């Protein structure tokens, strides 16, 4: 099969798929999720049920919290696979990092990045944000350490054992709150009613802030482990 024949066949396949998608869109009914059904219920009574101002956080960590647990399991599987594939025995090759100016400036800025990450995590039920986004911001700190200060600095400050501890701690917090839901309210990952307080304050909304903190540490540590495993002997040159 020569090149031209292959291109012609590919273009035929692409045109066919595009036409099928277009026909499917013309068959699709209008969007009516808000008039009836689940979305209507969540919008009407989500604030009274969970005490969380942010309805997306209410869906993620209360109504569909079991789904989020499955997602955490997927991240755990990805981290396990990457560490298993890229496992190595020796320490990483260190670099001297970037120049003095960048090191000092990031030394000033890194605590504020950490503060912003914790703000996004703990205010997940009041403002946009939550465990996933704040966790990725915390993972960015580890990436900054690896690139700017060299990977040996990252190894000394947050060794892989510490990251593993954070990740398992976050997952165990999630599972423990789920089991507490069984013991006190009667269903797995049920929102703990005795923890609710006045709506709009920082510690309210039952167990949602604690699940946020657990998911944040789990996602942050997991993505930091992924990045740390992928930079073997990468930044050895001195820029």
């Amino acid at each position, binding site marked *: 099969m020569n090149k031209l024949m292959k291109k012609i066949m590919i273009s035929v396949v692409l045109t066919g798929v595009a036409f099928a998608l277009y026909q499917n869109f013309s068959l699709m009914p209008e969007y009516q999720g808000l008039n009836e059904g689940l979305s209507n219920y969540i919008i009407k009574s989500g604030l009274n049920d969970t005490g969380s101002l942010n309805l997306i956080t209410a869906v993620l960590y209360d109504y569909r919290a079991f789904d989020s647990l499955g997602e955490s399991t997927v991240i755990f599987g990805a981290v396990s696979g990457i560490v298993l594939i890229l496992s190595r025995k020796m320490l990483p090759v260190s670099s001297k990092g*970037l120049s003095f*100016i960048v090191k000092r400036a990031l030394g000033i800025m890194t605590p504020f990045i950490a503060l912003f990450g914790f703000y996004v995590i703990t205010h997940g039920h009041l403002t946009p944000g939550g465990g996933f986004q704040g966790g990725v911001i915390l993972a960015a700190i580890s990436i900054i350490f690896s690139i700017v200060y060299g990977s040996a600095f990252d190894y000394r400050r947050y060794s892989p054992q510490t990251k593993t501890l954070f990740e398992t701690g976050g997952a165990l917090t999630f599972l423990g709150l789920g089991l507490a839901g069984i013991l006190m309210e009667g269903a797995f990952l049920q929102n703990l009613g005795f923890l609710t307080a006045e709506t709009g304050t920082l510690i309210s909304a039952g167990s949602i802030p604690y699940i946020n903190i657990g998911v944040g540490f789990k996602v942050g540590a997991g993505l930091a482990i992924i990045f740390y495993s992928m930079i073997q002997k990468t930044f050895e040159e001195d820029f």
Partner: protein
Amino acid sequence: MTLRLIISYFLMITGSAFAIVTVLGLLRFPDVYTRIHAGAVVLTISAVLVTMGTAIYVWDLFLSAKIVLIGIFFLFSNPMATHAIARASYKRQIALPEEYEIDAYSDYLGRDA
């Protein structure tokens, strides 16, 4: 249309004009270092002006304070990133043109780590 809105619109339009100047500099300058210079200096003042205009536009205490913090972050991060990129491209010798007579940076390379 109060005076506050006029001031904020003026700041935002000035910032956008500086952004257009940045794009002109990126397109018209000949090599890496002059383009980096255009991207650094003019883009920093553009971003700071736009954030100042936005902070005056919303005019709420905590919201304006957050936007001013974002502007201060630009003021820190943009020259720093530009410095890192320029230094890396100098040490990698990316596009070091031959017609430069003065190379003052090579004296400093031995001293800072």
